[in-house]
């Protein structure tokens, strides 16, 4: 692919661009729900899109991996079973996605393409165009600098927007992005070197925002990968987790699933893929009642091994955490990512008091 093109669009023109996009594609963007929360949802008018918002608690992962995803209908016709794949083919644009979430979508896309490729997910990823809004003002709980997933992106976006006040700096990362800009090409000017400078200054300022103490994966990852985290540490940390599965549900990179059929009615049923959570005790429960991972601490160890071990890092080429901070917000206990990573680094657990 050729060098990323850089453009600029005036703030006052953005809605017109969006109107063009809406004309051709379904658009999903952070918007205000009837209950007043911020959430990713399909929008019908450019005015629905939020530009100044707290990243929604539910990540946009559901648009790549729906929580309940019908895979096929089974129908009995004339005594024979017919397997009908569920074809869902819609060109969609995810607009104003945060950097961390865009990295997470790339992580998921790569995961499903690796080894045996999951063509359903691949197709959905291919029909998804991701427009990110770089985080000039990083969010309160995020730690994306530690996971190389923000606040500004160098990869993983189709289009990256940076708010320059009166205008947006537009980086085009892929052909999909180019096509999206092409829908209203006249609205975009080529970026001047001054624009580039303002964008770079914004990134520097954003990075500086994080300060020194965030979430150091490196040393924790070394400990996890070399088995130097005592089982007792997992055990004592697990007493502070309520097993609710919230962290895995709001995590933009968690992708454990189960497969289940809806109860048959009139010879028909639907096979669905459903989000599951490795934090649930039945995740590894076998039909005989045998469960190799009963201890709560082992389940917790599993989660962090998957997120932050060299073994997985090698396979994935990324940390399994993008630093969005959602688990910090949602955890009913005190065992969110930064707190646990800190405990692993220090080798001791204080119930999360240091992070209180």
């Amino acid at each position, binding site marked *: 692919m050729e060098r990323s093109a850089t453009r600029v669009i005036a703030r006052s023109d953005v809605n017109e661009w969006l109107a063009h996009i809406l004309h051709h594609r379904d658009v999903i963007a952070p918007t205000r729900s009837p209950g007043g929360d911020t959430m990713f949802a399909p929008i019908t008018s450019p005015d629905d899109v939020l530009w100044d918002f707290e990243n929604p608690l539910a990540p946009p992962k559901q648009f790549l991996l729906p929580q309940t995803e019908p895979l096929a209908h089974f129908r009995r016709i004339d005594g024979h079973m017919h397997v009908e794949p569920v074809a869902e083919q819609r060109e969609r644009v995810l607009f104003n996605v945060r950097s961390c979430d865009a990295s997470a979508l790339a992580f998921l896309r790569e995961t499903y393409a690796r080894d045996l490729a999951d063509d359903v997910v691949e197709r959905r990823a291919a029909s998804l165009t991701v427009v990110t809004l770089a985080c000039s003002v990083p969010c309160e709980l995020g730690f994306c600098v530690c996971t190389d997933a923000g606040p500004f992106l160098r990869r993983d976006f189709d289009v990256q927007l940076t708010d320059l006040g009166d205008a947006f700096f537009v980086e085009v990362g892929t052909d999909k992005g180019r096509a999206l800009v092409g829908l209203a090409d006249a609205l975009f000017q080529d970026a001047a070197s001054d624009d580039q400078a303002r964008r770079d200054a914004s990134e520097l300022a954003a990075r500086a925002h994080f300060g020194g103490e965030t979430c150091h994966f490196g040393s924790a990852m070394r400990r996890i990968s070399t088995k130097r985290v005592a089982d007792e540490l997992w055990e004592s940390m697990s007493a502070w987790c309520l097993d609710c*599965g919230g962290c895995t549900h709001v995590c933009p990179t968690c992708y454990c699933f*189960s497969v289940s059929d809806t109860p048959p009615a009139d010879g028909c049923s639907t096979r669905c893929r*459903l989000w599951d959570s490795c934090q649930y005790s*039945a995740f590894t429960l076998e039909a005989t*009642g045998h469960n190799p991972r009963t201890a709560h601490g082992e389940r917790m160890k599993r989660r962090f091994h998957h997120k932050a071990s060299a073994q997985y890092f090698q396979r994935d080429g990324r940390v399994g955490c993008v630093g969005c901070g959602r688990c910090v917000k949602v955890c*009913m206990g005190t065992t969110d990512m930064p707190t646990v990573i800190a405990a692993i680094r220090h080798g001791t657990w204080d*119930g999360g008091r240091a992070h*209180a």
Partner: protein
Amino acid sequence: MSEGRLCERGWAAHDAARWGARFHEPHIREHGVLRPASWDEALGVAAKSLRSLRDRGRPVGVLGSGRASNEENFLAVALARVALHTGNVDAGLRRCYEDLLAALEQPAAAADREDGIRRLERSDVIVLIEGDLTTSHPRVAMGVLRALRRGGRLITAGWSRTQMSRLATVHLPLSAAMPVSTLAALQQAFTELAARGDAVSAGGGGASAVERAASIVAESRRVAFVLTPFDADSVVLRTAASLIAALADDVAAAGGTPPLVLPLPVRANTCGAFDMGVAPHLLPGRRSLEDHDARDRLRAVWGTEPCWSGGLSAEEMIDSVSGLVVLADDVTEFHRRPDRAVAALQSLDTLVVFDSFVTPTTKAAHVVLPIAAFGETAGTITSLEGRVQRWRSAADAPHSIRPGWRALRDLLDALGATYAPQSLDVLLRDIWTAVPSYGAIAPAALDAAGGAVLEDSGAPRRATPVADAMRRTASRRVGAAPAEAPSDATADAMRWLLRGEGVFDWGDDPLVTSSPILRRTPASERKLRPTGVVMMSTDDAERLGVRDGWTIRVRSRSGEAHVAVSLRAGQERGVLFVPFAYRDRLSALSGDGGAVEVEVSRA
């Protein structure tokens, strides 16, 4: 649900409603079998049979539910008091919550507007009487963790070493033979300590666990008591609550901040159902049946002179009425003897069930009116701390399933009742008129994140005149009875006690049992181990030579049974606990509940 947080059920069961076996249209029983019918036909049949029973003076009743919204429960009360003219209205599992409430009275100066969980999070010490709080009330467990993280301390009392007890500074094991004796001892220790005025010395070396717990309470400024329905026995719950109330009074009298006392209901909307008047001895707003103000309001809203008399409890109704209306519930999930409850339902003249899930109760119905499940319909619920929250419909109910409030309204209409609100907004306004504490909330506040808090929340909302007397006698009655020492005899010569555990509901909730993800979790073990289990201590298992999952033979004076054991560390020795979900499996041994002596051997 609370502050945007959900428990396991909320995360994983969001569209479980699509997984369960459901009635997608109304059904009526004809020649012994249920057949599909139109709404008009089904409502007509239901109304006709109920009217005829009422007109012939036969007893009828209505069961509301802690699984239904406030609006649905309010209409269930109207169905009973207005349309059927009876005081027979109640909900399963209301009783065990009320057992806790009955003995409690808010200690003197706690007219504090903060809601319960917020106060809990800021406590210096929490005394928790639990079954297993992390699974029964995760949202409250979260509050406990918050308090601990802030440096607070925890004292647990319970049957086994739970997750919470592992975090406790002091754990007080309850004795199966005398469950409240530990609490009595705690109260007594505190009284003595307060009388001597030297909290610190009692905490020193050589002090018993009870003494250490008492001194921790004595030296703490902000004290919280959390009471779960840790036992299925009504008397035990009432006595325990009385003792805690007495202890709370003592703490307040000793000069600290008046403590928080948080009794926990079993189901999501038990508090709301109670507020709406789902109780045979109360009117909406938890007012007494004679309360003139409450009567005036209800007269105005309902447009008629309803029935003001008291009625039967849920279990009494199931045993003795001729016609029953059940709202969003299954009797096998709360009745002491599920097998008998189903038999009783089958012998009813008329059973009308508002529920779309296929359960033993809907299967026994004469008329099934399928209504939307939680999450498929709009409405409000009231949390245990008195937060009134709006529930929005996240998914549409499939087929011709109706919102519960509409189906209930339609039955009121079909019965020709004076009261049948035409929209959800009207209904909400009526509740606001009928129940003053709700009326005090600005409807817009409901839309705020987390909902609005009732004025008098954070505290049990009813003080009974008996409470005082009860708590005085309770401490005298149980005195400081010594906890039963574990028997040291060899396993085969041992005397065993078979005993029911506290009420635990969520493993039976249709949203759990029909969710492909959750139905396999141990909390819904009933489905995993259809033949049942009893809990045994790991020490006993070793002495008896059995492993987890093995079958034992249990014999009592009234019978014998084979049942699998599930091992639990830190549980009292010599006791077999029967989880609430399996209470019927062993009912042949224990008669009607309570603890019985049994003999145990390897099968």
